[in-house]
């Protein structure tokens, strides 16, 4: 099947801006779906295979609550993180806390959780749920091109979210204790920190951030019980490639992988875009066996 692409002419400025915006959005999108996983993995060494389902739950909160008349901004920015965060705390108390220090067993437990959540949502809402949500912001005109203003908003939210997490980690007592626990849990525990409480809060926070991301993506993606599977591998690969530092790792991973995916997609289509992302991750991990932040920005958050 020959791949037919439109005639490549010289690049006018508006096209360059439009493509540039898409590249940045691709990166922000990757960061947004990964950051919650990075918090949970970076702090707790728990690989949360139910991460995709937390994103899905965020989307469902928005779809179901707007169907019942809730304002979309309230649903996306408040309800989605709140409810998914709460679910995260419940999951941590009932399931994850028995498994600390057993990273591999958390794989099994969270995979079970992922199936359970898909099954639960399907049983309650059916295989698909009608929606009334549309992107709440208008169209962004760039010369002859147009894009969604909502994408610009999502880029902004991703940056703000990053700054907020940085501030929490850097400036608050919780952040200090969490960083301490992250670096050496036994030492922190010996110094009187309740690691159990820190873990609960961290898991809840990670889930809340994921719920927020899922909620924010609800107006521009399909919301279905099985949709989590489309995110989990990409998020997982981004976080591991980034390395142990939550923010620097996610940022570096997203910029590199998302950037390469975007460029390859523009040049030769989305299938090779995905392959490009995957190949980059392999080469990256070969060169830096502990992820990007295992070599660079080691002191960063």
């Amino acid at each position, binding site marked *: 099947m020959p791949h037919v692409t439109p005639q490549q002419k010289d690049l006018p400025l508006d096209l360059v801006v439009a493509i540039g915006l898409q590249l940045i959005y691709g990166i922000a999108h990757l960061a947004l779906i990964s950051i919650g996983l990075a918090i949970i993995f970076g702090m707790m060494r728990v690989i949360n295979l139910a991460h995709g389902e937390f994103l899905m739950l965020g989307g469902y909160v928005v779809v179901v609550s707007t169907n019942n008349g809730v304002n979309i901004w309230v649903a996306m920015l408040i309800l989605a993180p709140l409810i998914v965060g709460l679910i995260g705390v419940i999951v941590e108390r009932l399931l994850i806390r028995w498994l600390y220090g057993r990273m591999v067993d958390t794989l099994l437990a969270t*995979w079970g959780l992922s199936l359970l959540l898909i099954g639960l949502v399907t049983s309650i809402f059916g295989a698909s749920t009608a929606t009334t949500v549309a992107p709440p912001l208008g169209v962004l005109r760039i010369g002859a091109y147009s894009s969604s203003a909502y994408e610009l908003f999502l880029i902004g939210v991703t940056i703000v979210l990053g700054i907020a997490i940085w501030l929490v980690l850097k400036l608050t007592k919780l952040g200090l204790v969490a960083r301490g626990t992250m670096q050496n849990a036994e030492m922190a525990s010996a110094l009187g920190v309740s690691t159990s409480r820190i873990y609960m809060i961290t898991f809840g926070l990670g889930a809340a951030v994921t719920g927020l991301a899922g909620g924010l993506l609800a107006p521009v993606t399909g919301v279905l019980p099985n949709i989590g599977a489309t995110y989990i591998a990409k998020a997982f690969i981004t976080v591991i490639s980034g390395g142990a530092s939550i923010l620097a790792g996610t940022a570096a991973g997203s910029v590199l992988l998302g950037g390469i995916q975007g460029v390859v997609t523009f040049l030769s289509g989305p299938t090779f875009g995905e392959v490009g992302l995957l190949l980059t991750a392999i080469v990256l991990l070969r060169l830096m066996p502990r992820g990007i932040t295992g070599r660079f920005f080691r002191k960063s958050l």
Partner: protein
Amino acid sequence: MKQTGTLREMRPTLIFAFLGIVFMFLAPHVLQLFTIINLTTAIALAVLALSLALIWGYGGILCFGQVAFFGLGAYVYTMAAINFGGSTWAVLVAIIVTSAFAAVVGYFMFYGRVSDVYLGVITLTVTLILYSLLRRTSGPEYKIGKALLGGFNGVSSPPINLPWDTRTLLFPEHIFYVAMGALIICFVFAGWLVTTHFGRVCVAIRENETRAELLGYDTRAYKLGIFTIGAGIAAVGGVLFCNGVGRITPDVFGLYNAALTIIWVIVGGRGTLIGPIIASFALFYLTSALGGQSLLNNNLVLGVILIFFVLLVPKGLAPTLIDWVGARRKGGPTRTRRRNPRGTDA
């Protein structure tokens, strides 16, 4: 002296192998025809479980993409069998090509000192690349020799034929014997391998890589060795799988199957070979049975079972059983190998 020592150590393996042989000859007389036909697929998956049990449970290599070798084995077999017009050499080619591929991937990783979860991600990524690429290979231009790759829909796999007569194809109910025989051979081989010097060094590396290295072992070479052997066993599973299903499609490389392989080993118990095999059979039976009911959502039931399992049987099936039997026999608690408390190198 050494001979008898190996034999004693291999006694449980040989007992299970014997039970397997009994099952192989008894089952077709007891079970229904369709069960025997479908068992080939289950056995193929059990071989895959065995291969990961070997490289993860004994080699300490967390390979998230063991299905890559399984699927590759199936694809290479299918391509070769179509081109050769017979299955015997195709099986050998499948095992050799898959092992060679694993050796390249393994060299790339182990000699780059990639380990731990990072290694898991590389192997998973290799799997997903195969998935993405094979999915788009529909069309007459994507072919190897005479055999078209077939894209997402896959290719139908020629059944195994008698080694001396390429025209006598085996019926699915007879491939059951081949599959069961292959599983038993792979199981005994793996059971023997872990009692050899090579196997012991691999276990030593799993327990403490630095110490093994200080003792003068080139840990990279040992890891590469067990990884390549494991891939070869997975390829055998792949050959059986495409015979059982009658077809090979790219969805074997999907994330679900990649995760499922890991799940078998955790459920069965790391550090045993029989555990993951039993777990793969149990989960195979469970998913098959669930698909025949429509009372409850399948995902819901499977999810609940797995969660309860990880909480109640944290060590996995086989080690828990061994403990239980040991406790009853000696009248006191015995413990299987304690798991690395941080679990990070597992």
